């Protein structure tokens, strides 16, 4: 069983970091690289196992059976990994590994690096925990691990005013959101007396009370905060520019996905399964109307993708522009999830969900690349103001090339990976409701304008500021080129990836036959 090592390894790495850093100056960096590389290998193994067997992995902590002795309900913490979770784990470990390699060069001039690497590994640990857990309180704990590590990392450069400001804002808003989530969990526990997600799903279906609906509202509200959906995206636009760029890459590529949209999808589809409640309603049994949740998610999705992308157009700070663009892209993912909820059980819903999952992975890679590029620019030129950065292309051709690939991919130009995922989302939303598709396309027009502006800045006439800059060192170049290769290769095989990985992942998340619940139920004799 390789699954526990997904958490054991980063935990071990983080806790041994203070000791390792005593041994030598360079050692801690290599230690972080080794640990995150090994975690990536474990995640690849887990992903391959889940993908090949096409069934949900269930792991019980402390025993081989989640069911308590003498009772017939689960009492232990379980980890339940379906293809969606495994795919996210793979993405998280991949991007984290690259971000840590990138930090070797990028963080060289900072102090307190043993804390930095500890925090990065803790951040990775938190995200991995969120995506593999099947226990809702365990989910909360990992979510807090992730959030607290990211608060600390946003404010890591505590000698800059913006780091502290963004950190405080992020922490206050994030803690409030976390307390919403905890309140939701407490309500569910008080009502149903269990914390295991799949068992909770059964319990809620048996007796959907008002409390369950209130809890759902709290959970969705808190998680929309964490994913940076529009009325509550303001922390994101400050936190991403202020953090060190390797951290921005992880925040924007991973944290808002794992702690935000992944968790929303997990709660909507695994705890409150639309299919289950539609089934209940056909028998006139009390049920939760999941269409309402679907429309709420779609509403916030449309708002998010319009406001996020439109705000990106007017920015003059490069990292802020990327941060708003992240908000916009979260809108697409939420749109996919929302339509997946509304059109549950149809071809359209499945397609929308596959598009959302695909876009999560694609955006993680693309946005990581873009933030790494921004980091290189800040590191070499010392400013992220777009008005001063004109004409970088001559001195930094490889960086400009990486940026061009990233920008083209995020707009969704055909030979790159962003095209397929956005296309699936457009297609499914057009089939569901053409107005939603029109909104989605409008968002892309804004994002095209924003990135074209940055591209022209890179290409334009050389300004004084960039006269004697040069390409960064290899440890910063390498992760960018790896991401460029990944984006291009994924872009060349879009429909293969969609058919082989994303559609099965969407099917497993949809759990039309209640697979997520059955994976647990098979332990309860014969059910």
């Amino acid at each position, binding site marked *: 069983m390789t699954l526990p090592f997904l958490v054991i390894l980063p935990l071990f790495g983080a806790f041994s970091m203070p000791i390792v850093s005593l041994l030598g100056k360079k050692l801690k960096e290599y230690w972080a690289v080794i640990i995150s590389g090994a975690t990536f290998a474990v995640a690849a193994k887990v992903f391959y196992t889940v993908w090949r067997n096409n069934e949900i992995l269930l792991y019980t902590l402390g025993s081989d059976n989640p069911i308590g002795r003498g009772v017939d309900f689960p009492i232990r913490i379980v980890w339940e990994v379906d293809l969606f979770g495994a795919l996210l784990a793979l993405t998280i470990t991949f991007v984290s590994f690259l971000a840590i390699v990138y930090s070797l060069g990028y963080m060289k001039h900072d102090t307190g690096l043993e804390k930095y690497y500890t925090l990065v590994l803790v951040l990775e640990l938190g995200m991995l925990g969120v995506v593999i857990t099947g226990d809702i309180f365990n989910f909360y704990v990992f979510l807090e691990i992730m959030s607290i590590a990211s608060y600390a990392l946003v404010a890591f450069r505590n000698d800059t005013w913006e780091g502290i400001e963004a950190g405080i804002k992020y922490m206050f808003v994030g803690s409030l959101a976390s307390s919403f989530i905890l309140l939701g969990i407490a309500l569910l526990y008080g009502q149903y007396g269990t914390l295991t997600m799949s068992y909770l799903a059964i319990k809620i279906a048996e007796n959907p009370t008002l409390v369950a609906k209130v809890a759902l509202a709290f959970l969705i509200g808190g998680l929309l905060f964490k994913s940076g959906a529009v009325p509550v995206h303001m922390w994101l636009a400050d936190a991403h520019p202020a953090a060190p760029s390797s951290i921005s890459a992880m925040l924007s590529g991973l944290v808002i996905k794992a702690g935000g949209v992944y968790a929303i999808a997990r709660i909507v589809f695994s705890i409150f399964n639309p299919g289950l409640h539609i089934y209940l309603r056909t028998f006139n049994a009390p049920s939760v109307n999941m269409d309402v949740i679907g429309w709420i998610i779609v509403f916030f999705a449309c708002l998010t993708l319009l406001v996020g992308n439109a705000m990106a157009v007017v920015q003059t700070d490069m990292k802020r522009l990327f941060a708003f663009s992240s908000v916009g892209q979260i809108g697409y993912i939420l749109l996919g999830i929302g339509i997946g909820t509304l059109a549950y059980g149809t071809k359209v819903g499945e397609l929308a969900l596959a598009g959302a999952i695909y876009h999560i992975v694609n955006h993680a890679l693309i946005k990581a690349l873009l933030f790494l590029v921004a980091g290189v620019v800040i590191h070499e030129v010392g400013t992220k103001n777009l008005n001063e950065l004109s004409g970088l*292309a*001559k001195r930094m*051709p490889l960086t400009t090339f990486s940026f061009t690939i990233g920008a083209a991919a995020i707009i969704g130009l055909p030979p790159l990976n962003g095209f397929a995922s956005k296309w699936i989302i457009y297609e499914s939303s057009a089939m569901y409701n053409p107005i939603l598709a029109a909104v989605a396309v409008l968002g892309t027009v804004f994002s095209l304008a924003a990135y074209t502006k940055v591209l*022209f800045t890179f*290409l*334009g*006439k050389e300004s004084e500021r960039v006269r004697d800059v040069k390409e960064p060192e290899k440890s910063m170049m390498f992760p960018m080129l790896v991401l460029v290769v990944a984006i291009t290769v994924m872009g060349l095989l879009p429909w293969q990836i969609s058919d082989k990985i994303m559609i099965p992942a969407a099917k497993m998340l949809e759990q039309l036959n209640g697979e997520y619940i059955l994976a647990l139920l098979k332990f309860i004799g014969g059910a």
Partner: protein
Amino acid sequence: MNIVYLTLGLIAIYLYVSFASLLWEGIDRKLVARMQRRIGPPILQPFYDFLKLVSKESIIPRDANRLFEIAPILALASSIALLAYTPLGFEPLLATKGDVIVFIYLLGLIAFIRVMGAVSSGSPYAQIGAQREIIMLVSREVPMMLGLFAILWRLSKLGVEKPFSLGTLYQYNIWEIGTPLTVVGIFVLLLVFLLWLASEIEVGYFNIPEAETEVAEGPMAEYSGRHLALFKLSNALKEFASASLVVAIFFPWGISGHIGLTGVAAMVLDLIFHTLKVFAVLFVSMSVFRAITGRLRITQAVGMFWSRILPMSLIGVLLLIIDVLGVIS
């Protein structure tokens, strides 16, 4: 084996279209000269121009970056790729369902690459030209896309295997529908497409980005020698492909069927006939338009697109839609 034939076909088409489009440039210059009571250059003048440019030294400005040199190659590559999706009297080589989006994308990409090359040159003239080109690009594509999608949607109603492929234009003819509303709608759209064609190849009213007398050739200001030759060639290819689109939509008739030819001979005959139709369309939209109109200001051109041509396109599209929905029967 199929791939080999496709590659050979693409190379053959590329060579043919390069020849035909440069030949048309020569004819166009001759015709315009005659309209202005000049003798004009010989018909083969564009070939001499091309050869001369190729043989000349290419000067790279000091402020330019690498993209300045790569852009002409990318532009030509996209133009050649565009030919694989262009209807040339027979189905495009790579016709699949939905290929119309690739066609529009590649057409836009060529213009965008020109702009990127211009921005990379570091010259303020080129920058201004590039800005104008982007503005024009944004304005002109909307009415065209609206019309094109509406027509392909209408044709897909007739039952085709590959909906939204430019190949369907040869399966069903848009005039065949024949109801009064469609005919009027198609005439309106024909006008839209002729104006779009003029702006796509930037002549007459729309010769704004390149405006020789104002901004010294605009995007092309800093290009010389080999690089300029590549751009000229890719522009000529794009011109031919855009006109081919108009011909394929509105005048898709072939003659090979009438005289009972099949196979390669039919393709060659259709290609030649198609070329003649392209020349005819370009004569209207390019030569005549260029000879009798002057340049607009950029604001006027944008205003014209959004307040005249887009509503025109909307009217044409609505007429088609009303006809299908059967509101007026």
